[in-house]
């Protein structure tokens, strides 16, 4: 994992400022990566236009992930690039996957919404809103049965609060005291629907309480607050009390790369973008005596690292056509017969 604040006095107290520089770096890397994803699209090099950028949500990703441990597992929603980067993803392989290239995490078959990596505990991003949530119940069962001490975290958006499977999953996690955490990245919007247009009950964590979980909401502006809240929730889950954490943030841009958000006002956007955890950390770091130069260097390193991902992705190849029939089933198992082969056999009947 690339970022984890190393020392922390109390699990749910404010994290020491010495960690902030690392958290800042991670947040900057994520934002820069997402900006590059946007460029990939503009260049016509992304696989499709279903690219959901997590700009504005960096402290949710970095804050929660910094409270996770090696061996922990997680699933994400469709807006999951930042989360996986915060868990240590190789940005080259991510960008290649987003471009649909065979050097990507999933050999170019998955794309932006279907990135996974078993080694890093990533049990998969999902293009079905809510689709990845119940998997953490299963991963939690596995961890509990094996006594591995691992926690499994489901990341999803406020939109997933509409999906019944979330409540089924929370109920099971509570019933079985599983090491499981539900993290709702509440960026206030699900496509063109504001959270209060999707529910009358906007204090989302109250639902978790009603199912017997620990529940909390944290504002995303200060990444250290997110770290602290996440640490509390994850530690409790590791000890057998599953929890739910809503991280209140703002979706800075459109739903997907092409969406210009005509359904919300410029005022709202300007206001919403004030909730910028990177700017906030920058200010705090400056106040704490870090120089502009030092911070610029971090930004520059992120830019250089992420620039390279585009080159990597573009230089990579799309998957070979014969990859198409692989991996429907495990290697060596009977795979579906290609259509042409079948048709040719049928036509060659005499």
């Amino acid at each position, binding site marked *: 994992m690339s970022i984890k604040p190393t020392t922390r006095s109390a699990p749910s107290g404010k994290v020491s400022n010495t960690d902030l520089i690392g958290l800042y770096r991670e947040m900057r890397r994520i934002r820069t990566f997402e900006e590059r994803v946007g460029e990939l699209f503009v260049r016509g090099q992304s*696989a*499709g*236009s*279903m690219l959901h950028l997590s700009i504005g949500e960096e402290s949710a990703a970095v804050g929660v992930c910094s409270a996770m441990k090696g061996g922990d597992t997680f699933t994400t929603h469709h807006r999951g690039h930042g989360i996986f980067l915060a868990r240590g993803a190789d940005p080259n392989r991510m960008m290649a996957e987003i471009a*649909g*290239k065979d050097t990507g995490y999933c050999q*170019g*078959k*998955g*794309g*932006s*919404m*279907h990135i996974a990596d078993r080694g890093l505990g990533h049990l998969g991003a*999902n*293009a*079905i*809103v*809510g*689709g990845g949530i119940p998997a953490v119940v299963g991963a939690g069962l596995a961890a509990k049965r094996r006594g591995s001490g691992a926690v499994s975290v489901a990341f999803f958006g406020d*939109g*997933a*609060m*509409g*999906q*019944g*499977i979330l409540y089924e999953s929370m109920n099971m996690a509570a019933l079985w005291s599983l090491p499981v955490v539900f993290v709702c990245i509440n960026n206030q919007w*699900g*496509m*063109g*629907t504001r959270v209060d*247009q*999707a*529910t009358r009950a906007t204090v989302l964590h109250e639902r978790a309480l009603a199912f017997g979980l620990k529940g909390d909401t944290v504002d995303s502006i200060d990444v250290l607050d997110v770290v602290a809240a996440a640490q509390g929730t994850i530690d409790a889950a590791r000890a057998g009390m599953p929890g739910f954490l809503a991280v209140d943030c703002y979706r800075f841009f459109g739903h997907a790369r092409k969406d210009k958000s005509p*359904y919300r006002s410029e005022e709202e956007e300007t206001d919403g973008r004030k909730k910028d955890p990177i700017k906030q950390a920058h200010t705090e770091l400056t106040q704490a005596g870090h120089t502009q130069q030092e911070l610029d260097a971090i930004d520059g390193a992120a830019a250089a690292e992420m620039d390279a991902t585009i080159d990597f992705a573009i230089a990579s190849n*799309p*998957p070979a*056509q014969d*990859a*198409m*029939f692989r991996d*429907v089933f495990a290697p060596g198992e009977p795979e*579906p*017969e*290609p*259509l*042409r082969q079948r*048709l*040719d056999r*049928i*036509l060659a*009947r005499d």
Partner: protein
Amino acid sequence: MEKMTYRDALRQALRDAMHEDEDIFIIGEEVGRYGGAYGVTKGLIDEFGPERLLDTPISEPAIVGAAVGAAMAGMRPVAELMYVDFIGMTMDQLCNQAAKIRYMFGGQIGVPMVLRTQGGTGRSAGAQHSQSLEAYVMHTPGLRLAMPATVHDAYHLLRQALKQPDPVVFIEHKGLYALQEDVDLNAPPPAWGKAAVHRQGDDLVIVTYSRQLHYALEAAEILAQDGIEATVIDLRTLNPLDFETIRHAVEQTGKAMVLSEGPLTAGVAAELAARISEECFDFLENPVLRLAGEDIPISVSAGLEAGSVPSPSLVVEYARKLMK
């Protein structure tokens, strides 16, 4: 005649129907303010208000379930699933409730609802946003199934669906929304449940529906240059299924190909091939060829995506082989 897109024709159908029938309302994700993920319902909220363009939370099972209840209570809901790929979570409401209510309850309550959705490949949308799942619906007793391929049908099939007394699943193709045609919407439409013969030829019959109609027509043009003349049938509705039109054409030609974007095994192509084989047994000179989606998930990578479903050139290639 006016130029119109498939998308606009769908919108026009909804608009005209909603003016005519006060009981129609649309319920689904982003159908109102946003105007639909593919723009079909754009602007309708201004015309009909938010009560008749009901933006919902992301709750597919309850969207379909609420539509079932509204239909039982005498309304005529149009539930929208943004992608047919989300039908899995609604299949209890669709197949155990909507499809069975009239029958289980001895005929006393109907469920006159339309489930509008879209499917198919072509936008690098990946395994969970590119499927063609019409076979699940076709297999389920009690559901009607319409899949328009043309602008004209986008309008008329939707208008007709909105007059059916029973649940209709209405599947559009994401690759067709921008399709433009000259249409005269006032010309009398073909009857609900009747297939359309788009081209008449003596050599073989291609039976298809939805976007693959255009692939079939494209292939037929090319084949004609070789002197191979194909009859191309667009089924328009898969339930009811107009088998008589197929039978007639197959009896003329003795050679048939069925063409579907959905996965091959136990899919729509299987049903069509089985029926042609059993009903036209003595007329067939060759096995019915099934050209359908490969039995694999769809990749996000454009090359693999395109390779996963039949293309016009595949149709040409196998039509030629069939004629040898």
